[in-house]
């Protein structure tokens, strides 16, 4: 075990996989000389050279699509997109090509590629640079979507994603890069499609993923002090979605709240609420509630941005409402 940041977990995992397998090649804007917009690839150009760490022009559709072609010929490209917002320029390649080539051609060729990209608001980057659009990708058969919330999972799931033969959207978050955690040494291959009970509890389940899990854990700790036992389920994988773990938790707690950074309507939480009401109907004591972002192009001004994004206070309030609605007495 060593303590390290989420950023360092990503960096060291990329390095390890590149050392292990020559067919792992990094592509992206500013990942080499500039060392990455968020410095995830720092030092890798120096170590592996220009062919393994390839700076690209600003041409998301072109270089993500090129990653697909490389993968079809047996390589394992790991493409960095500066933020999830810019994946929109390449979404035809991701959704109409990467996600479909294996099935549409009858299983003849796989597309083992990883698209690493951070999402999230809260940095005053304004409407076009602050989105959480992962639900779009999570909707698409043929893709896998993972969204680890801590350095250990980042390591294990990035390793798994690189070795997986399908296209994986690996969702990071600007606010997570500097967060720290214990990471097991040595090779760690995570299991895509498995949620984790990040904190066990008995009274109410909070389901979340990526950055939101940190908030959920913090809120859970606060409730613990007041004698309320909150179970936090960290999805880790949005596609496939581990419905069993989520529903098993709610069957135990009878109450559920989803915390998500995206917009409420048709967001990730919608599927969770839908799943829970189907998979734990007889156990639910109150409606599943969702805490999500206000539905507005995110404004730049800090007070507006703060008001629009979900916080620990919002989650606390809603958990209390759910407890009240069910006359929870502890």
């Amino acid at each position, binding site marked *: 075990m060593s303590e390290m940041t989420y950023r360092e977990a990503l960096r060291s995992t990329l390095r390890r996989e590149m050392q292990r397998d020559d*067919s792992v*090649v990094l592509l992206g804007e500013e990942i080499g000389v500039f060392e990455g917009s968020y410095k995830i690839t720092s030092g890798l150009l120096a170590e592996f050279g220009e*062919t393994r760490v390839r700076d*690209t*022009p600003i*041409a998301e*559709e*072109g*270089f993500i*699509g*090129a*990653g*697909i*072609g*490389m*993968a*079809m*010929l047996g*390589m394992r*490209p790991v493409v960095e997109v500066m933020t999830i917002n810019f994946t929109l320029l390449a979404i*035809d*390649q991701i959704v*109409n*090509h990467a996600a479909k*080539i*294996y*099935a*549409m*051609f*009858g*299983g*003849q*060729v*796989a*597309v*083992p590629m990883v698209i690493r990209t951070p999402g999230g608001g809260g940095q005053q980057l304004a409407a076009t640079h602050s989105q959480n659009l992962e639900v779009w990708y999570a909707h698409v*058969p043929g893709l*896998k979507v993972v969204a680890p919330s801590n350095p250990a999972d980042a390591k294990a799931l990035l390793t798994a994603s690189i070795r*997986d*033969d*399908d296209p994986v959207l690996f969702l990071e978050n600007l606010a997570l890069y500097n967060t720290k955690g214990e990471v097991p040494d040595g090779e760690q291959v995570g*299991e*895509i*499609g*498995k949620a984790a009970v990040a904190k066990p509890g008995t009274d109410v389940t909070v389901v979340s993923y990526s950055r939101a899990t940190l908030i959920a854990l913090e809120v859970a700790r606060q409730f613990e002090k007041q004698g309320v036992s909150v179970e936090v389920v960290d999805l880790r*994988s949005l596609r*496939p*979605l*581990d*419905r*069993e773990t989520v*529903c*098993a938790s709610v*069957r135990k707690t009878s109450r559920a709240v989803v915390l998500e950074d995206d917009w409420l309507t048709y967001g990730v939480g919608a599927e969770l609420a*839908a*799943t829970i009401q*189907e*998979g*734990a*109907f007889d156990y639910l004591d109150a409606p599943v509630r969702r805490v999500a972002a206000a539905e507005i192009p995110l404004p730049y001004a800090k007070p507006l941005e703060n008001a629009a994004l979900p916080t620990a206070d919002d989650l606390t309030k809603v958990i209390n409402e759910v407890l009240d609605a069910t006359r929870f007495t502890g």
Partner: protein
Amino acid sequence: MSGSTGSPTTGRAAAAGGVTPETLKDYYAQMVLIRSFELRASEMYQRAKIGGYCHLNLGEEATVVGLMAALRPSDYLFTTYRDHGYALSRGLGAGRIMAELFGKATGVSGGRGGSMHLFDQKARMLGGYGIVGGQIPPATGAALALTYRGGPGPEAEAVMCLMGDGTTNIGAFHESLNLAALWHLPIVYVIINNQLGMGTPVEKAAAEPELYKRGCSYRMPGVRVHGGDVMAVREAAAAALDLARTQRQPSILEAMSYRLRGHSVVDPAKYRSQEDTQQARDEDPVPAFRAQLIESGVLDDDSATAIEADAERQVAAAVAFADESPDPEVADLFVHAYATPVAGTPHRLPGDPVISVPADDPGDVPDEGGRS
């Protein structure tokens, strides 16, 4: 390839010198096979044996055969939804192709792709693609992958990426050609200029309608060739591929071609003028090549007729094969869902519950859903 030229090069010279009569006969046979296949595909579509969209290479046979003659088995091919002829010339087999059009399990893509999505991993035909321009970035990436396999040289592998004239106006074209030029990738971008994208003439779609010149924005050379001349096409394609192999110089090859019918089998092409249609018929490459081979003594009427009859037989056999082939099993709906199956992969049919609610204990339920 001697740089850019405005006038189509001609392959008659090439046809005359250094090419065996057997080769010429083979090209004719391939052209005739495509012609027969496409006419039959059209018929099968009318008879509802084929569904979806169906785009034919009628009129483009010389281009198809010339290009495929230059492409080696070790090279990779990416093409468009107008892909039957390429698959035939690449040797995928008329039966397996027709079976794909019929949506049968024996089809080249297992019946999953249909007419627009012919694929054969062994033949290195890496797909027909239905999104306009969608094939260009992956083809470029395939060429990039080749640079990790070894250096340039006369035996090096290369990629050929086909597209239509209308496709040169889409963003992916620009992004990809820039990457290929910047990174010196072994690829030839072939533009089949049949002068129409659906009903839109090339001049109404491309502000530089001499499409072989559009590499200028990437310092990428281009040539234009008369697509009705199989030998000229072969020669130009071989030169462009050679440039890719030996110098890793990507280039554009524009083949001036002609679409004998509508955009797809259901398009009556009312927007085309009489003269236009007449010109197409007059320049039909199949009878033209026949006449040329007879004139030069490579064929006589009997041997030509024999080739044509053989093509008919092959196509009839292909239809029979496709007809007799089984449909894909519904039970196999999810077999190609993922190359690496993981826990929770959805295997639900419409109406299945999202989760099996346990009577008592949830237990261990690795896959979701019910019926499969």
